[in-house]
């Protein structure tokens, strides 16, 4: 079992209005089987023991599914391993790269203000969903689930888009801090399914409107989001969202009314 000492430069920021800075720590005897967050746990236990304040970072499931964790490690959102959240990153990956020094930062985007240290406020994502990321169905009024067969490839594609965990790595990785991948994934998940057709036009208009309103940047096709995404959500969904949006813009609400 390999162990190693690492030098950490961790972003410490007392609150949203504090300017923040990197602090240097030594993580002693880091074991290759530790997860990245367990390494931070050990550093935090030491800090606490010495009477210092532990590093604040968000996390919950530690299984790569809740989307609560997320930090930038040496410039990579969620660290260097592909398709892996920070909580699922294990230190052997860091050892293999020969990294002895780690720069650990929060997601950086104006729409994700820092709460403290590595924890940020991703409320903007919830508001994008609230703007229209749903199918309006009242509880108890659904018809039998097998009444509408859905071709397997359509359902599988919807699932591909639905796998998004809403962690915000796409925003952190994008040079423009765009939330297009996140928004497009939800729009596509619902827009692919027959149940999602009735609200398809309205949905894309409202969700994209909210995304712009939150101050996220625009997408200029860098593709960094797809690379950073721990769930491998495809950038193709953004093209699909843009097509839907174009359609929605050309059939304005007035047109729809006229047709009636």
């Amino acid at each position: 079992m390999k162990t190693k000492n690492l030098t950490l430069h961790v972003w410490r920021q007392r609150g949203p209005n504090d300017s923040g800075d990197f602090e240097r720590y030594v993580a002693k005897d880091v074991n290759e089987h530790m997860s990245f967050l367990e390494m931070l746990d050990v550093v935090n236990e030491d800090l606490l023991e010495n009477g210092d304040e532990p590093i604040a970072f968000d996390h919950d499931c530690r299984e790569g599914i809740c989307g609560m964790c997320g930090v930038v490690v040496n410039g990579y959102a969620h660290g260097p391993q592909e398709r892996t959240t920070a909580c699922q990153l294990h230190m052997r990956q860091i050892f293999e790269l020969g990294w002895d020094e780690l720069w650990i930062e929060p997601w950086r985007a104006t729409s994700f203000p820092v709460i403290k240290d590595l924890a940020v406020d991703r409320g903007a994502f919830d508001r994008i969903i609230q703007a229209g990321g749903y199918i309006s169905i009242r509880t108890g009024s659904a018809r039998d689930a097998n009444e509408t067969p859905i071709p397997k490839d359509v359902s599988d594609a919807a699932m591909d888009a639905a796998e998004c965990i809403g962690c915000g790595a796409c925003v952190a990785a994008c040079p423009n801090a765009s939330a297009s991948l996140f928004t497009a994934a939800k729009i596509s998940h619902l827009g692919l399914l027959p149940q999602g057709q009735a609200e398809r036009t309205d949905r894309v208009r409202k969700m994209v409107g909210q995304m712009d309103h939150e101050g996220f940047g625009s997408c200029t096709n860098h593709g960094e989001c797809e690379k950073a995404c721990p769930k491998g959500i495809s950038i193709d969904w953004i093209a699909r969202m843009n097509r839907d949006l174009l359609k929605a813009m050309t059939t304005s609400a007035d047109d729809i009314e006229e047709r009636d």
Partner: protein
Amino acid sequence: MANTELKSNEPTGPIEDRWRLHKQNSDLVAPHNRRKRTVIIVGSGLAGGAAAATMGELGYKVKCFCFQDSPRRAHSIAAQGGINAAKNYQNDGDSVYRLFYDTVKGGDFRSRESNVYRLAELSVNIIDQAVSQGVPFAREYGGLLANRSFGGALVSRTFYARGQTGQQLLLGAYSALARQIEAGTVEMFPRHSMQDLIVHEGKARGIVTRNLINGKVEAHIADVVILATGGYGNVFFLSTNAMGSNCTAIWQAHKRGAFFANPCYTQIHPTCIPRSGEYQSKLTLMSESLRNDGRVWVPRNKEDVTKDPKKIPEEDRYYYLEERYPKFGNLVPRDVASRNAMYVCDDGLGVGPELDGERRAVYLDFKSAIERLGEDTIRERYGNLFEMYERITGDDPYKTPMMIYPATHYTMGGLWVDYNLQSTIDGLFVGGEANFSDHGANRLGASALMQGLADGYFVLPFTVGDYLGRNRLKDQAPLEQDDKAVTDAVAGVEAKLKALANAPEPTHSPDYFHKKLGNIIWKYCGMARTAEGLKKAIEEIPKLREQFHREVKVTGDTDGFNQTLVKAARVADFLELGELMCIDALAREESCGGHFREEHVIDMEAKRDDEHFQHVAAWEHQGEPSAAALHKEPLEFEYVKPTQRSYK
């Protein structure tokens, strides 16, 4: 009136009519009055999220709370395997009755028949609801929904969305919730932690929360309170639960008068990735489906435990499940598989890294399955899981056997509720894993998601509506922020947090104590329990608790984002609940389901004592966990007659 006689309030008559008639006889709140009634829902998982969305839609004024930064991150998100429903889409003989029967039997005859029947009945509506929300369940080539058989069931009734069923169901409920937040019927309070329950004139009337960002302690007043705060498996420190899962909400409600039912019923899942070191923060579940093709073994000889498993010849491998249970082999139920893994490791045959002088892992080997079916088939079946395993351990299960060990997974115990899901405190309702109601002493796979959603979408909106209909606004005692019941509760929480942040001899972190507690509970109240061990635990826990309050160390501001303080407050409650678990386990002088008392065994299997223990044990708080008073709700089985389990 507080329900201290434990009246289950279940309807009588033919079981298939009970829920329908009960609904017919329920009170309703007029639509224009609903917006005048405030409903607090703590929790945004499947149970809380579904209830909040539905009650918002009905027009109530809902306030929903969760401790994560978004309701979409509740622990339900992590469920992998699937959700049961008696749809009988496979035409393999499934029915509501069969799902009911399997669940009562699976719970080892320690659940309430009426509740379980209702659960089975509502299971079909859940699937309809989820599909219409856009949940992309797996489908067959013809476009219809696919099913699989799960956890030894004889029918294929489990619906799934790849390995992310919980995620997709939760995102469905979350989207319905988001729609109501947008509509203004639900106000969402993320990053809030409930710290106390406000009881006024015998009724639950609000909660005290701590805002996790700015540390503010606040009271929220309502007409009714629903707790859907999940399970308490983290009392073991290591479990498959999310790091933040906690017992604070239900424990504080317990201290305010809600009885705690069957706290000792916990489920230990056999296939989890073992600990790799002292720093281990949680354990990861590997799907149970792996046991369909993997063979479980340990070396026959102690000398071989450190040997490369591939170099151990066939005759030196001890396939202990296949040898001990020839009929079911590797597919014995969860508790049997877990216990046997423990026994072989107790015998010194465990493999894996040595921690605290022991090796605690067994092999799960796919070699013969790969030989028989080819690597491609195995990849198709378990590719994702193998990848996850490799990411965590660095080992490739196609080449070398996996290592697994049991871990705490689910808590069947929880706050006692009647048929309406109301606790012993009037106006306090409890749903999802937080209540005790449907799984008896053991939960079947794929049935927790079903219960959470049945409670949230279909039961609570009705029964809470009935409660509000009977407790009319004009008859309700007015309650304001400056009322003593409110200010006292707020002051109590502030004082408690202040004490935790200023222990007299601050020495150790909250985790230090949490780990110690976890070790005690795991050792004495884990897979196998004895009176002697439990007594020891009941002696040790209060001492640890006392040391905790003296020596816990919390740094940083109390009036800001402070994860150490949050942790300390959770550990304080686990330290009390842990003791009650052991007291309950000691009092239950039988083995049933996940509760295995070594003194009560027949042919190596759990031996129930129906004559003396066919009841729910509901504990009433009386100052200290050790002083808790036991109340019993007798259980009757009109439809499914109790039988002894046998897997030989």
